């Protein structure tokens, strides 16, 4: 027999669609594709709410992708944080595919949010909100290993969610890595399949910050910020910030007009920064001097 293109498309679709018969979920439609799985919107028929279900993309009963997906679910289930999507259920579908059910995230992708946030302070504050769940995960012994713009979503109330923990690893596991990750956002030691620690995520966040600053309209970058990104994305991990909190602290200092650790400023630069930081006071002093000076000159 010879299948027509239309039939072929339908069959492909049928094979990829998860089989939810016998589960408490009813399929609503596809949402998109994550790291190793496809994500679908479903309705929980018991609790009458919409959820997202992530399913192993290639539907077969080989152990490693299924175990990887379930491992991702377990990581998320044990980390409870406003910046992490809560997991509600996990297991195997009737067709043998591994799945997990999580909160349905409503919001926009990071690059869409950045198109609206055009000033540097706005983008930096958003970046700090991305750092929070990552720092939390590190404090609980988990590194993400795949931080990048497409894994960050911004909710309708400005809340930030870090998604796709499919490559997450325990900080305790000292075994060699597997070079998984995204080029451009992956730390060199991770790309070389060497052992990784929290500084791999520092690199990822640095690369993410760099990407966030490039989205048009790109705000101008002060030297201190260039230095922060450079330090976070240093090839040698000993030259990076020791952890996410240190990176976030330096970004906060930049936002507050204070001196940042990553950048050694010259006297002129320092003066400029102080003037900018205290511009109202400086402006008032200037107004006073101008007024006094004008009166003195007029008297003459």
């Amino acid at each position, binding site marked *: 027999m*010879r*299948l027509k293109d239309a*039939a072929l498309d*339908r*069959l492909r679709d049928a*094979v990829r669609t998860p*089989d939810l018969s016998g589960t408490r979920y009813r399929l609503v439609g596809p949402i998109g594709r994550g*790291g*190793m799985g496809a994500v679908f919107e479903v309705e929980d028929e018991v609790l009458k709410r919409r959820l997202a279900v992530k399913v192993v993309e290639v539907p077969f009963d080989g152990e490693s992708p299924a175990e990887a997906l379930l491992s991702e679910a377990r990581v998320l289930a044990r980390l409870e944080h406003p910046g992490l999507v809560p997991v509600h259920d996990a297991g195997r579908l009737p067709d043998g595919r591994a799945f997990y059910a999580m909160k349905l995230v409503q919001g926009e992708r990071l690059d869409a949010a950045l198109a609206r946030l055009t000033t540097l302070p706005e983008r930096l504050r958003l970046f700090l909100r991305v750092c929070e769940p990552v720092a939390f995960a590190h404090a609980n012994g988990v590194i993400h290993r795949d931080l990048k713009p497409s894994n960050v979503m911004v909710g309708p109330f400005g809340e930030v969610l870090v998604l796709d923990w499919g490559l997450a690893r325990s900080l305790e596991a000292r075994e060699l890595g597997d070079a998984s990750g995204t080029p451009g956002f992956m730390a060199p030691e991770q790309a070389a399949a060497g052992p990784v620690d929290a500084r791999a995520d520092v690199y990822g966040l640095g690369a993410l910050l760099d990407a966030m600053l490039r989205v048009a309209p790109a705000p101008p970058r002060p030297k201190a910020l260039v230095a922060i990104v450079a330090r976070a994305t240093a090839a040698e991990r000993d030259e990076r910030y020791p952890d996410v909190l240190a990176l976030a602290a330096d970004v906060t200092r930049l936002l507050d007009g204070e001196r940042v650790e990553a950048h050694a400023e010259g006297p002129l630069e320092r003066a400029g920064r102080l003037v900018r930081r205290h511009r109202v006071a400086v402006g008032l002093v200037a107004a006073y001097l101008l007024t006094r000076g004008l009166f003195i000159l007029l008297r003459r």
Partner: protein
Amino acid sequence: MTRFPDTRGSLVAAVKSGDGEARARALETLAEAYWKPVYTYVRLKAGREHDEAADLTQEFFARLVEKEWLERFDPSKARLRTYLRVLVDGLVANEWKARNRLKRGGGISVLSLDFETVRREVEERSGEGELSPEDFFEKEWVRSVFSMAVERFDERCTADGHALRFALFSAYDLEGDAAVERPRYEDLARRFETSAVDVTNQLAAARRDFRRILLDLLRELTVSDAEFRAEARALLGVEPPA
């Protein structure tokens, strides 16, 4: 006529094995999966006319058996699909003429190669130019594998007494063009004199069975887990993980 292999082992392993019957069956299955892609590729890449392409296709499979090309296949270097395509390139480059066709037995016994249907499609498509010959090869391979899976599913349903299941599957997923809306479950229920609930259950079971058959077939056509996963993504039109 396809037959179900007794084991789910790789076809390549079966071809390399000493078991004559298993070898013959494996070669038949391989040929069934690959003859259309090979024909299409020869027509589009080498620009051969229909008769010469048809002859070259027959020639290719004869040589596959005679020269034992599969013995030299190393799965760590490439996918089977790529390896076979490269062999086709080699065959075409060496300008084997139709009259050099060797008639040997012991390999493919009966290959009902319906060249005419494929010919028409190739001739229609070759004007479009959006796909390269290599892409056509892949597309035809996908089509062949799915077609084989459908045939096996049909045979399985008949053997197990689930004729209604295949009939519903065919009516819902195989019939009609993209422009035509799919039949509603209620209409199918009326047409096949059953209930809508039964239609729902049968279709769910049909998809589950078809999926399993399709992937079992793919397992036979691949050698390693990594190749299987990569080919599954190509088969299902899935992008690899970013």
